[in-house]
């Protein structure tokens, strides 16, 4: 492999903290990761499934109800054509950015600490995108005609409107899901081979064997595999940036005050990374506690770095919020000024949703500031709490953007309040059920940590490492 390609070697001269603590061996990595999958089903897992799967079922029932009766079972109205549905969509798709970002961007920038978290983060991405995809699909009034979105030649000789940001969304989200799935699957192949080779039961051998596609770990395979992985990482990086940019175009290309803003693409991408990392930590911190075997792979160093990213992206998002206010003030457009200063920030008490704006401000901008302190970054509980704030705050960011702009727009005569319906709330709750159920299944049946990649960063993996084996 040439120098230009990725190097898995830890430069000896930079004496970094090891990414796998306690100088474990390759064998240890295999044993520990696989033991999660191959040990008997733990009781807590069954219990957790018993909680999450009924919630997912409630969500599905709500979706069936909504499709059979109409969008009216939600709280949307005129003028609030979108509300929770697109809020939830953007919320989930934002979360779905961290996985690919960790996998791709950190891979390209040779942030090797990513190896222990990227698998779970990618899985989280996929499940989040699944949850995200539900909303735009069911929010349409006639789901059964959603195929009109596909550019299929038809006897009506009519085509979709390629100028519509919603159609861009269709392409972006489906491409993103496809590429993320492939990326995740490609990364899984060697690990599935490991599981295949360790499995005792015939069924497991066959199932993992099918997944592993007959992987033999030969260097001729590794050669193309690494190139494919690198290319996918290279493709995913602009993809991940484009997807949330395109999602932001839904708003940025419109003419609504508060939506029509050129700052949206970078602001949304930063927000997505922010929210995504918070969700990764939300999942990984408890997982590291539940599986002590992972503790040496998900180290304080990981948490520290992710907290720093939260601080950085949170501050970028905060900058964007302030810049919006500045532009609204500087632009002297009374409609925009009203949206930002009255409908959102509520400087004179006429705003309807100012609570949403200030929740967003506090959660997204203020709360991560504690990560300036190393102590806070090292405190798992503090990190976890801030992550929850960020999860809430990012949801409210989307709610603020969507609902405040629609509820109080140009003509005061058409202003209208919005309140969610029970069905709407349960549908959103249901997506958490779907998300966590899928994640639990993933934890139970697939390696949560990229085994081969972690092996690659063990001291032993270095061909020049002279430490005797065992």
């Amino acid at each position: 492999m040439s120098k230009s390609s990725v190097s898995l070697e830890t430069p000896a001269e930079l004496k970094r903290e090891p990414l796998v603590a306690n100088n474990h061996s390759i064998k240890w990595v295999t044993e520990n990761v696989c033991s999660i999958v191959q040990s008997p089903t733990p009781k807590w897992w069954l219990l957790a499934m018993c909680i999450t799967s009924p919630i997912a079922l409630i969500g599905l029932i709500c979706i069936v109800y909504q499709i059979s009766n109409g969008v009216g079972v939600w709280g949307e109205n005129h003028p609030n054509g979108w509300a929770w549905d697109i809020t939830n969509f953007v919320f989930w798709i934002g979360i779905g950015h961290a996985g690919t970002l960790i996998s791709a961007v950190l891979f390209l920038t040779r942030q090797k600490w990513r190896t222990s978290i990227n698998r779970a983060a990618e899985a989280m991405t996929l499940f989040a995108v699944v949850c995200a995809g539900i909303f735009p699909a069911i929010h349409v009034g006639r789901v059964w005609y959603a195929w009109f979105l596909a550019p299929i030649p038809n006897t009506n000789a009519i085509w979709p409107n390629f100028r519509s940001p919603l159609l861009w969304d269709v392409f972006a989200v489906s491409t993103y899901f496809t590429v993320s799935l492939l990326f995740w699957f490609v990364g899984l192949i060697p690990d599935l081979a490991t599981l295949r080779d360790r499995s005792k039961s015939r069924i497991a051998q066959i199932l993992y064997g099918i997944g592993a596609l007959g992987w033999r770990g030969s260097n001729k395979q590794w050669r193309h595999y690494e190139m494919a992985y690198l290319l996918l990482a290279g493709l995913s990086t602009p993809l991940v940036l484009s997807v949330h940019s395109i999602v932001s175009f839904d708003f940025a290309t419109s003419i609504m005050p508060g939506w029509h803003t050129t700052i949206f693409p970078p602001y949304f991408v930063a927000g997505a990374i922010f929210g995504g990392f918070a969700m990764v930590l939300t999942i990984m911190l408890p997982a590291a506690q539940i599986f002590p075997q992972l503790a040496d792979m998900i180290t304080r160093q990981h948490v520290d770095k992710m907290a720093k990213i939260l601080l950085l992206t949170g501050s970028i998002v905060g900058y964007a919020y302030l810049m919006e206010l500045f532009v609204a003030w500087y632009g002297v457009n009374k409609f925009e000024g009203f949206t930002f200063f009255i409908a959102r920030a509520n400087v004179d008490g006429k705003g309807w949703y100012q609570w949403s704006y200030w929740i967003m401000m506090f959660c997204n901008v203020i709360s991560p500031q504690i990560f300036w302190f190393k102590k806070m970054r090292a405190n798992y509980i503090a990190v976890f709490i801030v992550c929850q704030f960020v999860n809430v705050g990012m949801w409210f960011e989307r709610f603020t953007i969507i609902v405040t702009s629609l509820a109080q727009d140009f003509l005061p005569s058409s202003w209208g309040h919005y309140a969610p319906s029970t069905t709407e709330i349960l549908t959103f709750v249901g997506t958490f059920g779907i998300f966590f159920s899928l994640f639990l299944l993933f934890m139970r049946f697939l390696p949560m940590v990229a085994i081969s990649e972690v092996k690659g960063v063990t001291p032993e993996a270095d061909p020049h490492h002279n430490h005797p084996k065992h």
Partner: protein
Amino acid sequence: MSKRILQHPAESTTGKRYWRSLGQLQDTPEFRSWMDREFPQGAAEIQGDDVSRRGFLQFMGASVALAGLSLSACRRPLKNLVPFTKGVEWSVPGKALFFTSAMPSRNGAMPLVVTTFDGRPTKIEGNPMHPVNQGTTDVWAQSSILDLYDPQRSKGYLFGRKPSDAASFEKALGELLKGTPDGAGLAFLTDGTVSPTQERLRAEVLKKFPKAVWASFEPNGSELEASAVSAAFGPGHHAVPVLQKADIILTVDRDILGVEGDIAAIRGFAAGRKADKAGTKMNRLYVVENRYTLTGGMSDHRLRLAASRSGAFLKALALQVAKLAGDAGLAKAASELKVAETKIKDRWVEECAADLVAHKGAALVLVGQRQPAAVQALGFAVNAALGGLGTTLELRKTAATPALSISALAEELRKGKTSALFILGGNPVFNAPADVRWADAQGAVKTVVHLSLESNETSVAAQWHVPAAHYLEQWGDALAVDGSHMVVQPVIMPLYNGLSSIELLAKVVGTEPDALALVQKTFVEAFSTQADLTSFWAKSLKAGFVEGSRASAVTPALQVDAVAKACAEASAVRVVENTFELVFITDSKVDDGRYANNGWLQELPDPITKLTWDNAALLSPAAAKKLAVETGDVLKLSVGEKSVEIAALVLPGHADDSISVAVGYGRTEVGSVGRKVGVDVFPLLTAAEGRFRVGVTAAKTGRKYALAVTQEHGALEGRGADITRQSTKQEWAENEANPDYFLKMGIDAHAPANFSLYTNPPLDDIHAWGMTVDLNSCIGCAACMTACQAENNIPIVGKEQVIGGREMHWMRTDRYFASEGGDADEPEMVSQPMMCQHCENAPCETVCPVNATVHSEDGLNVMAYNRCIGTRYCANNCPFKVRRFNFFDYNERSITSLYKWNLISDKGMPESLQMQKNPNVTVRMRGVMEKCTFCVQRIQEAKITSKVHAGDSGVQPRVPADVFTSACAQVCPTDAIVFGDLRNPDSKVAKLNKDQRSYRLLEYLNTQNRVSYLARIRNPNLKMPDAARAGSASKDAHGHHGEHQQPAAPKATNGGHA
């Protein structure tokens, strides 16, 4: 529709029962005569089509029969085409036929042209040939088509609330009349509509039964005005204001442009209000009223004053007028009037009186019909002093013969000597004044026969209920506002075999109950001087009215002493301090409750309050503060021993010591639409005190009630100069030479010129459709909304959905309360019709992912429902929020079962309602977006006609200027909405579009709207104390705006879930 209707036995109970089936009638003489009448001869057929879309219900039950799959038709279900056996003249399948008719009402019948498709009326328009309305109509005429098809209309005779039939009724009627050869013990009660034939039959009835008693009752009628007129001018007259001749108009507690006026008054006012160019003559309107009305909304100067204090105002004004005009008689009469102690703004009265006197001969003072007769008589005296008699105030001989009042009739009935009472229309059990105790009185009668369209409170208290024929179902006649004789022509056979009142009277008299013959007999008697009566009848029927039959004015002298006497004799209106007066207002929608089961009316937002599906206690912000209530808090209104509980609605501009409440709500015996809607306040209304009552106490109950208000926000938020541009006559004159005067207001005064990187694709059709809305003429009556609803098959959604913000009206009339400096008590009111602006650069189009909404070359923003998947993105991106989404299947599902699981709830529209649907407009399903189309079905029809006419002549097909218009423009009583071809220089819209007042909304967005608004011009008297306020809310003030914000209905707490 699995059964073939054609083979139905006549008695079928499962098929359509709304019209007579072929099997029932095919060989009977009635059928032949009916066929001859409806379609005298010729050939036609009905083409099968699906009722769900085109509502194309087949005439006589001929129908598409879905016979399932057969071998020869394995690819699709078999459908049949069923032609007539014999053609019917004039009837061309798929083409509309138009008939003249008239809608009777107490204010004078509305001349109409009824559109029918294949035998079913679908739309009502004004008669363009009649001088009174010139093609325009009002809310009630527009929605009366729905009453015709009301699925819960009375469908048969009831005896003792049990189904009976016509034969039993005939028999019972015969026995009733046999018992009283001289009519002793017979009583008749009619409503206030005036029909020459009914008058003639009344005379015949009274001739045959001389001892019979005849009474008439209109809950919102004008008896007090009648007695005032007879006091001032002698009996047998009635007064008609001629607003087009008045330069200065003062109304005192009189909503002449709203529920207390008629279309002639509205058109007269609008004619005097035209602002064609700067400096043109324009009338000035002073309004004294207790609550905002449409009249108040149009005012140049408005004084808030309780109705009980209006007399005091009029007295002060009359004294001032007498002083300025030197009229001693008036001064004497005025000084005799005893009024409540009231503080009146002196300068307001002085300057107003000075203005009136300065325009002697062209000034008009109108006093409210609820005011005591003496006050109204004094009003006539003021008009006489101002030289208005014969010019601005015309007097005519009344057509109706005097009748007993309902109080007198009730007394008569209570004597227990009445054996039979015939109630022809009306619902006195519900809406007679409380002190009449009508229910008791009616109970004292042995046999009560009640004729009405629906089985109502009076029907269930009567022995016999007779289903009435809708006015579109039976021949009749009526008088228009100007007194002209009109024939009410039926356009469909009675759907449920209803009787008209003249048929019933004919039965009583014992003549043949043939409505046509009865009407023709009246006609012959009235116009016996005509040489050829047959062709005169035909000509009049075609025109819809008898030309030259307009009532002529008479000029009786004012009997000023009689006025003074009346003033002296009248007792003073009491004013009880620290209580409220309660003003009973005629509802702009359900009237006195008669239209309660009309969904279009129930869902039509009140023009002032924007309230639907309810009435409410209207009170001022100050009064609300005093009572510590806000909109939605339930108030207990008590007077004497009676009280009602009703939700408060805070209305800016209301008098502080007054509460207004609309009557006609809270019906109990009514179809499902009107049931449990609003609160009945008739228990508080007494004949003794009339339609306002003093000494009412209001108390907060602590309960909340959800009001369905369609416009949550009434303030302009400093956007008046952007949205509703206004100026005053004086300021406009100063800026006459500035073409940008109205263009550069608000943000458009600051925004840089629009600049596009694109070259827009050419909209190069020979036509360019556009619309102008003249805010100076628009009174905000919402007739356009109803017309749009009728024309475009717009469903109603129900109160819950309106609260959820899902009303479907394609157009709305926005009503703003605005005032500079945030004066909550004295705001100005502005109405603005708002519909799709048909932007040439339409923001909705680019965001649609499936090309369901695109632009046509003639400039329409078109919507292909069948392509729409319902993302609602277009609605979000519409700056005017005029797009409407079908959140549920409002057409197919009952508004009460929207939240039931679709799998278990019933679907389908009642068949009679399907008959109303416009066959040229798609009935939209759930999940699709819809919006104003500029009545594209009419555009296409006009274009097609022009192409067919062009044929192969080689002439460029082009729709001539103004040969058709949109439904909203057609109905508009003030011609404020004008639609047409902008590319045709001859069209009205092209000319108005170039008007200096023309501006487009949110021009800075560069949406290039095809709808433009003409700025409103106010004509304040600069000497008045409040002159500076006129139009100030729409001026481009920087930083110190403030409008009063109407407290919103608690919408958010009622999100749309079950």
